[in-house]
Structure formats: C-alpha cells, structure tokens
C-alpha cells in the first residue's frame, strides 16, 4: 500500500514536472519580478535602484497614462456593449434557421473571428482607405463630398477601431448565445404561445431572462479581453497621433520598449494586472454560480 502510494507520487511528479517548470519560469517568476521592478528605476534591460512608490506617483501625475486609461474605457464601452447586444440579435436570427442554411449563415458571422489581426487590419485598411476605399462611397456624401481619412481623424479613430473589432470578434459571442438559446426548452415557448403570448412577450418574458446569465458571461469575457486592447489600435495608429489614441497596453509598450523605462512600464503593468484580476475574480464567481445551478 505504501509502495503504491509512493509510486503514485512519483508518477504525479513526472507528469506535473513540465507544467511546474514552465509555470514557475514563465508565470510565477515574471509576476514576482514585475512587482519588484515596478518599485525601481530600472531601464528595460539592466538593474535599477529602489525608488519606492515614485513610479506610481509618476503614473498618477502622467496625463498620457490618464488618457490611456480613458481611451481604454472608451474603447471597451464602444466595443463590448454593441458587440454583445448585436450578437444576441444575430444568435436569435441564426437559431431560427435550419440545416445547411444555418451552417453557412453562422460561418459568415464566425469566419472573421478565426483570422489573425493582420488580416483584419489589411482588409479594413483597404475598405476605409482615403483614396480608393469602398467605404468612402458612404462616408464622403456624409462629409459634403470630401473623402475622410478615418484613422487620421481623431474623433473617428476609436469608434472605427471598435466597429471593426465588433465585426472581427462577434462570432465568439454569437456562438455562446446560440448555445444558451438551445438550452431553453421548446416547451416553454409552446406553452406561452398556447396562452396567447406574442413574439415580444415571448422574448421579454422568456428569452431575455433565461439568456441573461449568458449575456453576463459574454459581457465579462469581452470586458476582460478588450481591457487588454493593443493590436488593432497599435496597427491603425502607426504614423499618426499615437499618443492621442494610446491604450493601457500601448502605454506599457511605449514606456518600457520605446522609452526604455522598465520600472515605469512594470508599474503600469501592475495596475493593468490588478484591474483585470478584479474583473476575472468576478467572472470566476459568475461561472461558479452557474456551475452550482
């Protein structure tokens, strides 16, 4: 008995070893190091001196950091809520279809999600192109006939980035909503329609309350994802007024990699880290609550 117990522990050790080594090296160590470096004036490469909470004071006073936070929140609001509501509408529409039509329609909404950001960047860069872009046929008349360089017009930048993000990622949300809709039993709808409930009543009294947990799940997943926004905003702002559209991850990138302020970058990382951990704990609690039901 003792021998088998020991062999079990040895097996566990062998199976866990790769995981423990990789997580120790790439997760635990960098996380501890991040906290430590954030209290120093270190450059990106090399050691620095302990400088207490100087970095955090600097972040607090830095207008670029404040505007990066605001831009991130602005982007989150513009992308998460429309993306979630639109996905619910699409899921309801797709769920009504049957067989191969449903597969094709779903694939149309889902295919962009599977593509790398570079493809999304090229396609929308082309469609919104100032000189030859297709979207100018719609945009130019609204602007009195003049073409608009969308990603060089500050008020349009974030809405445009959020718009193409919704286009890119909505397939994921649609998928979760369809799974949720399929979990609502048909009998409830049949009973309701026998009682004379109309379409709107069925939606507001059955679908909406029963899909609400999925809605909350989608909202939190998207929220956590979009707080980490970097790729699209970085690619489209290149060569433009980068600071004006900077987001939190971009701020980290700028401080650590472009200005060689490793300590300040780590401090900003720590802030982002804490913000996201708070929302993730929230999400975890939601998932657990769902699991227990």
């Amino acid at each position: 008995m003792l021998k088998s117990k020991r062999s079990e522990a040895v097996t566990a050790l062998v199976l866990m070893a790769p995981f423990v080594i990789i997580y120790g090296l790439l997760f635990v160590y960098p996380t501890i190091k991040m906290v430590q470096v954030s209290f120093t004036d270190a450059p990106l490469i090399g050691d620095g001196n302990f400088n207490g909470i100087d970095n955090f004071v600097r972040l607090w006073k830095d207008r670029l950091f404040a505007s990066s936070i605001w831009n991130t929140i602005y982007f989150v609001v513009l992308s998460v809520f429309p993306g979630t509501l639109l996905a619910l509408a699409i899921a309801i529409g797709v769920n009504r279809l049957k067989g191969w039509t449903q597969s094709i329609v779903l694939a149309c909404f889902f295919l962009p999600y599977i593509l790398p950001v570079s493809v999304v960047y090229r396609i929308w860069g082309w469609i919104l192109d100032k000189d030859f872009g297709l979207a100018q046929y719609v945009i130019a008349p609204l602007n009195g006939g003049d073409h608009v360089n969308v990603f060089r017009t500050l008020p349009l930048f974030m809405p445009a980035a959020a718009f193409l993000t919704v286009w890119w990622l909505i397939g994921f949300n649609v998928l979760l909503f369809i799974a949720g809709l399929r979990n609502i039993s048909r009998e409830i709808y049949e009973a309701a329609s026998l009682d004379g409930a109309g379409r709107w009543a069925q939606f507001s009294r059955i679908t909406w309350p029963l899909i609400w947990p999925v809605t909350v799940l989608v909202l939190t997943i998207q929220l956590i994802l979009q707080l980490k926004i970097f790729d699209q905003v970085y690619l489209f702002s290149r060569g433009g007024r980068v600071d004006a559209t900077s987001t939190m991850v971009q701020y980290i990138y700028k401080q650590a990699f472009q200005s060689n302020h490793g300590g300040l970058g780590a401090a900003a990382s720590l802030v982002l880290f804490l913000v996201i951990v708070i929302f993730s704990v929230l999400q975890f609690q939601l998932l657990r609550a769902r699991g227990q039901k």
Partner: protein
Amino acid sequence: MSATLSTTNDLGLAMAAQRQRRIKTFDLVGLFATIATVIAAILWAFPLYWGVVTSLKPEAEVVRAGVQLLPAHWPLDSYTYALFDTKIGVWYINSLTTSLATTLIVVIMSAGAGYAISQLNFPGRRILWWMILASFMVPIQALIVNHFILFSQFHLINTLTAVVGPQLLAPVTVIIYKQFFDSVPKDFREAAVVDGAHEFQLLFRIYLPMNWGITTALAIITFIGAWNNFLWPFLAVTEEDKMNITVGITQVSDAFGVKYARDLATAILAGLPVAVVYLIFQRRVTQAIMLSAGIKG
C-alpha cells in the same frame, strides 16, 4: 335559440379570423427576421469577399473608380509577388514551427498535469490546482515587460524559442483536461488497476483515448491561437528573418508605396491556414471555444 346559436357562431368565426390574422403576422415577422439575418450574414462576409477579390485584381484595376465585384482580368500578379518577392516563405515556416511547437507542448503538458490533478493523490495537489485557477485570471499582456527581460537574460530575443515561450501558459487547457478526466467513470480505472496497469498505462490507454475528441479540439484551438498571436511575437522578434507571418506582413512594407492588391494578397495568404483549419474542423473549433468559455458542450 337561433339567435344565440348565431352569436356563438359569429364569436367562433371572429376568433378564427383573429387567430388566422395572428398566424399571418407571425409568419410575416418570421420571414422578415430570416431575411434580415441572411442579409446581415452577406454584409458580414462581404469585407472578406472584397479583400479576396481585390487581391486577385491587377493594381491598375484596383484603383479604378467604381465598384467591380469581379476582376476583369486574373493575372494573379499580386500572389506571385507575395510568394516569390517577399519573405513570406520564411515567415510561413516560422509561424508553422512556433505554432506547432506551442500546440504540441501545451497539449502534452496540459494532459499530464490535468491527469495528475484529476486522478492522483500527491502532496501539493490542491495548491497547484489553485495556482492554475489563479493563472487563468492573469493577463499575459501585463507580463510582457518581464517576459522580455527574462528572455533577454537568456539571450533568446529574436529567436523562435522566445516566440513560443509565453504562449505555453494555457491554464484553460489544463482545466478542461481535468474536468474531462474527472468525468471518466471510476470503474474503468478500477478494472485496469486490478489487471495490473500502471498509472502511465492508465493515462495513455484509457484516459487519453477516451478523450481524443477533446485533445483534437484543444490542439486545433491552441494552434489557431498561436498562429494568430500578435503582441508577443511582435515584441520578441525584430529581425525580419525570425518574424511570424502575422507580424511580418504588418512590419515589412516595400519601398514603392502602397500596393493594395499585394498587401491584401500577403494578408490572405497569412489567414489562409487558419481559415482552412476552421472550415475543416468547424465542430471541433466551436466545441473548444465553448469549453474555454466555461460552457461544457
């Protein structure tokens, strides 16, 4: 008598008419919803179509005024250019190498860890499980600075090893494996143990084969994720020859100004592998996505 009969009759008729009207409006609303969904789907796919069509056109045709839904000529210049005059071949190999390595290591590591935590008793099991759940919540993006410091300490910046490194953190796959191994009935295990099977045999002969579907699904989604990853490969590599395709096509542009068809052709070549993988394994991809969102499907 006859009067009452006629009123009930009228009432019945009126009700029938009302019901019919309701059915009629129902169908109208339903039809409208279906049409709207299909139109939305076409609009959604149109940018992809437009990108592909543009990439097939000659540059002169691309910048011509008006909307041409099909190219007049198919010289495929932009593709021959993308394939032979850019570094796309090297970038493809880099992407393929790093994505396959990431997938292989993540799957093996996660299956092992998931099995140990699910089926074995060993000291530190609970702590490890909580650590995995905790790392699930940590944004990798917050660690970019320290990952860069770490890899430069090992002089690994501008290597494929550095590109793979942080992508190995995939706690979700461990969590999913654990959940699936948990749900394998204990009878299988007991029967095999009576037959004298060793733990490794249990894993490779029972637990993994019973969950091949999950392994495929997780492998596919890990591969797609690794192929599409942008931020870390972009930071870890600045040498053109070591770039991934997603980074390469956005960082290297030729000196002759904007060439729309060429840019789009390289982008489409970059997206093609994942699009094909998705179209072949649609069901597995959707399954893996639901699982990673915490919905067991």
